[in-house]
C-alpha cells in the first residue's frame, strides 16, 4: 500500500498562485474603480438631461428591487416594457432580493465587480456606500428633475452636501387606532400630540390595562420631532446633550416606571403589529402601508380600527422615510441607468406605484393627485391613514443625518436611552456618554 507524500513545493506554488490571482484581481478592480470614479463626474454631468438626452441610449441595465415580487410583478414588468419601448437599444433586467439580504447581496456583488446598475436601497445604506464613492451623484446626474421632488425628501439621500439617490416611494406616519379601547377609557378620538398621547395613556392603562403610546426604537426620529437636533448644523459634533433632551428622557423614564410602555418593543423583542393585533395597545403610529399586517394577523381587530393623523411633537413636523433608487458609479451603462432611475421615479410611474402599494410619492405632482385627497372619512383604516399621511407629506422633513455612519450614531443614542430605562443610568450621564460616542464616530 502506497502512502501519500505531501508535495510541499506544489502546495506552496498553488498558494502563491492563489494570492497572486487575488491581488491581481483587486488591483485591476481598484484601477477600474478609480478610472470610473474619475470619469464619473463628467459622465454624470453629461447625463443631466437624462432620458430626454440627445443621444440614443443603449446597453444593459440591471435593476435590483427589494421584496416587491411577486406582489408587484405586473407593475415592475410594465415599467421594464415601457422603458424598453422608449429606448429599444436598452435591455432592462429586474432582480428582486429579500429585504433582509440586501446589504449582503450588494456587498458580494460589489466585491465581484457586479454591482447592479440601478438599486433600490434604504437611505442609511445609500449614505454608507455613497461615502465610499460607489454611487452616482444625483445632484449632478438628475439636476433636471431635482425640483420635482419634495425638498425634505430629496435631501434624505444627502451626504457631504450632495445627494446620491432619487426618492422612489416614501411613507410618513399615519395612525391606526382601536376605538373600542379608547371608548372603554372614556375617549372618543385619538390623540393629536405626544403630550396628549401620554396623558391619555395614563387613563387607558389604568382603566383598561392596555398601552397607549409605546416608545419604539427610533429615538433619532422622536428627538427631532420634539425640536432636538441630533448633530450641529455642519454635522461635525453632537448637539443633543441639552436640557430639552434631559427633560424628554426624564419624562419617558417616569412613564416607563409607571408601566405606561413595555420595554420589549424598544429592545426589538416584540413587534408593534403583534401588540396591536392582540388589542394590547390602543394606537400605533406608522406608515399606512403597514396597517395591512394587522389585517393579516387579526382581521377582526383591523375591521374595527380607524385611521388618523400622525402624532405631532413640539417641532410640529413629520419624518420622511423614503426608499431610494441609486445608480452604481461603476455601471457600464451609466447613461441608460440614470435615465431608467429617472423614469422609475417620474410623477406618472410613482403615482401608479403609490396607488398599488399604499405608499406615498415623493414627487410633488404625483402627491397632488386627487387620489391622495380622498379617504378622510373612509371606514377603512388604511385609506384614512393614507389620507392623513399624504397631508403630512407636505411638511415632512429630512431627519436622516448627513453622515456616512448614521446607523452607528442612531444606535449610540438608542443604547444610551436603553441604559436609562434598563440600567437606571442617570439621564445626564447617559447623554454625556452618548455625546462622547457620537463625537468619536464623527472624527
Amino acid at each position: 500500500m502506497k502512502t501519500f507524500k505531501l508535495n510541499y513545493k506544489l502546495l506552496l506554488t498553488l498558494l502563491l498562485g492563489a494570492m497572486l490571482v487575488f491581488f491581481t484581481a483587486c488591483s485591476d478592480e481598484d484601477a477600474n474603480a478609480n478610472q470610473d470614479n474619475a470619469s464619473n463626474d463628467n459622465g454624470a454631468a453629461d447625463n443631466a438631461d437624462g432620458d430626454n438626452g440627445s443621444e440614443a441610449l443603449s446597453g444593459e441595465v440591471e435593476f435590483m428591487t427589494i421584496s416587491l415580487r411577486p406582489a408587484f410583478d405586473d407593475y415592475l414588468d410594465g415599467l421594464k416594457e415601457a422603458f424598453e419601448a422608449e429606448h429599444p437599444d436598452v435591455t432592462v433586467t429586474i432582480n428582486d432580493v429579500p429585504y433582509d439580504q440586501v446589504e449582503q447581496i450588494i456587498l458580494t456583488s460589489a466585491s465581484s465587480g457586479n454591482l447592479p446598475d440601478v438599486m433600490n436601497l434604504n437611505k442609511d445604506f445609500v449614505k454608507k456606500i455613497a461615502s465610499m464613492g460607489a454611487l452616482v451623484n444625483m445632484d449632478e446626474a438628475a439636476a433636471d428633475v431635482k425640483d420635482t421632488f419634495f425638498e425634505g425628501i430629496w435631501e434624505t439621500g444627502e451626504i457631504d452636501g450632495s445627494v446620491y439617490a432619487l426618492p422612489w416611494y416614501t411613507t410618513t406616519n399615519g395612525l391606526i387606532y382601536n376605538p373600542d379601547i379608547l371608548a372603554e377609557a372614556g375617549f372618543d378620538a385619538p390623540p393629536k400630540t405626544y403630550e396628549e398621547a401620554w396623558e391619555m395613556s395614563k387613563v387607558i392603562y389604568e382603566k383598561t390595562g392596555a398601552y397607549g403610546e409605546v416608545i419604539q426604537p427610533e429615538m433619532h426620529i422622536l428627538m427631532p420631532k420634539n425640536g432636538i437636533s441630533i448633530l450641529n448644523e455642519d454635522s461635525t459634533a453632537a448637539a443633543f446633550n441639552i436640557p430639552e433632551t434631559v427633560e424628554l428622557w426624564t419624562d419617558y423614564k417616569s412613564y416607563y416606571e409607571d408601566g405606561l410602555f413595555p420595554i420589549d418593543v424598544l429592545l426589538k423583542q416584540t413587534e408593534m403589529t403583534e401588540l396591536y393585533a392582540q388589542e394590547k395597545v390602543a394606537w400605533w403610529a406608522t406608515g399606512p402601508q403597514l396597517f395591512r399586517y394587522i389585517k393579516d394577523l387579526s382581521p377582526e381587530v383591523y375591521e374595527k380600527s380607524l385611521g388618523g393623523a400622525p402624532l405631532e411633537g413640539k417641532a410640529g413636523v413629520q419624518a420622511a422615510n423614503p426608499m431610494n433608487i441609486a445608480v452604481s458609479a461603476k455601471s457600464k451603462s451609466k447613461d441608460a441607468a440614470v435615465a431608467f432611475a429617472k423614469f422609475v421615479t417620474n410623477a406618472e410611474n410613482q403615482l401608479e406605484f403609490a396607488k398599488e402599494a399604499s405608499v406615498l410619492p415623493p414627487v410633488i405632482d404625483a402627491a397632488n393627485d386627487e387620489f391622495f385627497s380622498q379617504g378622510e372619512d373612509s371606514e377603512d383604516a388604511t385609506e384614512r391613514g393614507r389620507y392623513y399621511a399624504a397631508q403630512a407629506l407636505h411638511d415632512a422633513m429630512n431627519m436622516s443625518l448627513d453622515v456616512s455612519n448614521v446607523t452607528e450614531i442612531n444606535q449610540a443614542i438608542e443604547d444610551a436611552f436603553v441604559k436609562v430605562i434598563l440600567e437606571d443610568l442617570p439621564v445626564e450621564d447617559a447623554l454625556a456618554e452618548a455625546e462622547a460616542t457620537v463625537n468619536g464616530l464623527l472624527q
Partner: protein
Amino acid sequence: MYKTRHAWGFLSIPLLLLFVFTFIPAIAAFILSFTNYNVFQPIEWLGLDNYMRAFQDEKFINAMFNTVKYWLMVTPALVVVPIFVAVLVNQKLRGIKIFRLIFYFPVLVSVVVTALLWKWMFAQEGIINYFLSLIGFEGVGWLINSTTVLPALAFVTVWQGFGYYMLFYLASLQGVPDALYESAELDGAGFWKKHLHITIPMIKPMIFFVAVISTMSAFKEFTLMLTMTKGGPLDASTTAVLLVFEEAFQRLDMGYASAISFILFIIILIITLINQKLLDKNPN
C-alpha cells in the same frame, strides 16, 4: 502507481473544492486582516493595526467575554447531560428506539426555527413566564435582561444540541463490553459505581472529542444570537462571531472583521491543541 493515480483521481475534486472554497478564502481573509478593505474603496495596507485595535476595542473585549461566558455555560452541559441521556437510552427496553428518536428530534429542527420558537417562549408574556406565574413566581424578562440573556441562549443551545452528542456517546457506550458490568455487579457495584469506574473511563476519548467539538461550536455560535436577541440588550449577548458579522456587513469594515476572525481562530486552535494533548495523555 496504479493505486496512487486512482487515489489522486478520487481526491482531486474534494481537494479542489476545499482549496477554492476554504483555503483561498481563508488565506484572502488572513491577508485582508492587515488591510482596511471595505469592498468599495482601494485597499490600504495597515500592518498590525487591526489586531492592535481589537485589543483596545471595548466591543471586541465585551464580545470575547460574552463568548467565553457562553462557552462555560454550554460546553460542560453538552459534555455531561448527553452522557446521562445516552446511558438511559442504552438500556435494553422495549420501544427504546422511540426515546432515542425523541431525544434526537431537536437536532433535526433548523436553528432559525428553534430560535424563533424559544424567542416566543422566553417572551415577557410567553409560556415560560405563564408557567412560572402558576407557581407564584413573577415573570422574568429572559431575553431583555443582561443577566439572564446568555443563560437563556445557552439553555436553547443545550436543548438543541444534547441529542447530537448523545448519539456519539451511545455509539461509544455500545463498544463497552457487558462483561465488565457483569463482573462489577458480582463484586457488588451499584449503578453509580459501575458508571463512574467503567463507563466514564471507557468513553473518555469520546468525552474529550465532545468537549472539543462543542467548544468549537460554542465559539462559533451566531445564528441563535442574531435571530433571538441581535446581540442585545446593550450588547449583553454579542458574541465574537456576531461582532464579526456586524463589523463586516453592517459597518463594512472587512479588514477589522477578518482580524477578529483570526484572533478567534487562534483561540479555538489553542483550546483544541490543549484538548488534543490531554487526549494523547489519556488515550483510554
